[in-house]
């Protein structure tokens, strides 16, 4: 089960029965628009606040995934979810709607893979037959909480990232057809002293490096084992640092298999500066784009390294640096 210091190897390989991705108006103009199950034209989703809109995104992602998996919500033994809003309200309120056993998670933008790895562990240990793992983020709700009002005219630096409006969900089961979760590496919190909330890519890059190194060290594996290795939301600045640091530590990942969800999701002409971020970033790209490619047989082995910046609006005002984390999950077809 435990291999090396921090990697879980799943003998029974939990199956990802189905996945779903829901996005907003900005995502519908992006590169991966076709991989979403539902795309909304309205930032508000017909709700009267951004927070309610985010809850709606998550509820829809859960609804769609249950339908695709062909199971009822009563079959879900555990619902694992996390998001960026204070006290993870989007997750807990969605759990209220679903009325299934629920464990709330917080790993900031790494919540997607945190949920998937913990869910796989629950399936593996027979604590659950069906696990629903989900996460969401909403651009305006995150901006409101972490930065300035959305309509405020402050100029953002070129290192800033755009929070994805989207939610992703996956149903895990013991048996069935679909991609399987083979192992997961749980990351350590790494803080290299970056305190600029407009440069989270640079803050999170060392955490991604640490987890990727741990993954290959624990499993005694070579990066070429995978068809794609994707980091969660480092953006162009963080991703470049991540690649350089890995090379510096003697771990060369071939350029053609190494990518970042935060760079993939939007087109170059969209005004997102360094790229995308948020829980919804790695969730929608993994559950929407990568899972489709796996089911179509284009990918066999995938490693997702979801990165998270564990800051709060108060911590950076108090001049604290940004602690970061990354969790890696290996999915094979």
């Amino acid at each position, binding site marked *: 089960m435990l291999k090396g210091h921090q990697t879980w190897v799943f003998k029974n390989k939990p199956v990802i029965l189905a996945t779903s991705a829901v996005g907003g108006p900005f995502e519908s103009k992006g590169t991966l628009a076709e991989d979403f199950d539902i795309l909304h034209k309205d930032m508000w989703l017909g709700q009267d606040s951004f927070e309610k809109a985010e809850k709606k995104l998550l509820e829809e992602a859960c609804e769609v995934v249950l339908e695709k998996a062909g199971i009822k919500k009563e079959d879900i033994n555990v619902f694992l979810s996390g998001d960026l809003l204070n006290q993870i309200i989007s997750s807990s309120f969605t759990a209220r709607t679903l009325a299934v056993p629920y464990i709330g998670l917080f790993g900031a933008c790494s919540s997607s893979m945190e949920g998937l790895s913990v869910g796989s562990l629950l399936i593996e240990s027979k604590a659950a037959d069906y696990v629903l793992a989900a996460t969401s983020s909403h651009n305006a709700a995150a901006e409101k909480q972490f930065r300035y009002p959305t309509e*405020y005219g402050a100029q953002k630096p070129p290192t800033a990232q755009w929070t994805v409006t989207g939610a992703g969900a996956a149903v895990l089961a013991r048996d069935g057809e679909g991609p399987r979760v083979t192992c997961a590496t749980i990351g350590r919190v790494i803080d*290299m002293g970056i305190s600029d909330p407009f440069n989270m890519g640079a803050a999170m890059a060392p955490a991604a490096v640490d987890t990727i190194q741990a993954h290959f060290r624990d499993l005694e594996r070579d990066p070429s084992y995978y068809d794609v290795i994707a980091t969660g939301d480092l953006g162009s600045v963080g991703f470049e640092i991540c690649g350089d640091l890995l090379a510096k530590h003697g771990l060369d990942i071939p350029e053609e298999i190494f990518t970042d969800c935060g760079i993939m999701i939007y087109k170059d002409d969209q005004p997102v500066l360094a790229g995308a971020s948020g829980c919804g970033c790695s969730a929608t790209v993994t559950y929407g784009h990568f899972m489709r490619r796996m089911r179509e047989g284009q990918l066999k082995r995938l490693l997702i390294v979801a990165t998270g910046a564990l800051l709060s609006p108060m911590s950076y005002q108090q001049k604290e640096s940004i602690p970061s984390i990354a969790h890696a999950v290996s999915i094979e077809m």
Partner: protein
Amino acid sequence: MSKKKKKRLTPTQQQYQQYAKQREPKRPVFLNCVRAFLVGGLICTLGQGLQWIFMTYFGFDEMTAGNPTSAVLIIISVLLTGLGVYDHIAQWAGAGTIIPVTGFANTMASAAIEHRSEGYVLGVGGNMFKISGPVITYGVFFAFVVSLIKIMIKELGGM
């Protein structure tokens, strides 16, 4: 970075800070200045034009025309904020749209819109000055300090 903060960081962290700094795309400072000059100048020219209109057609004098002029600029700024255009202009113009009175109107209007969902009292009322509050606080404080200095110099026969 301040000295105090640097002391708290380990050598590895400091090394990484430098490393990350090199990889940061630079802010286009010169270009930002040019844009700020152009847009800021444009807003001021518009203000000047408005003042002229109020003086020529509405019977204001040079002292009193300032009030309706700023009022018109504020209304335009608030409208553009509400229509969701102002932040896009500001990303391009930078300081050009922040510094004039239009920027101040934008801080209040954007915060008011943002917190409408928490109600009129605790939401709009409580958060409207979230960003503009410091400007008022320190504006009033420094005006007080400067006037004290002026009075002192005057009393000592300096002016």
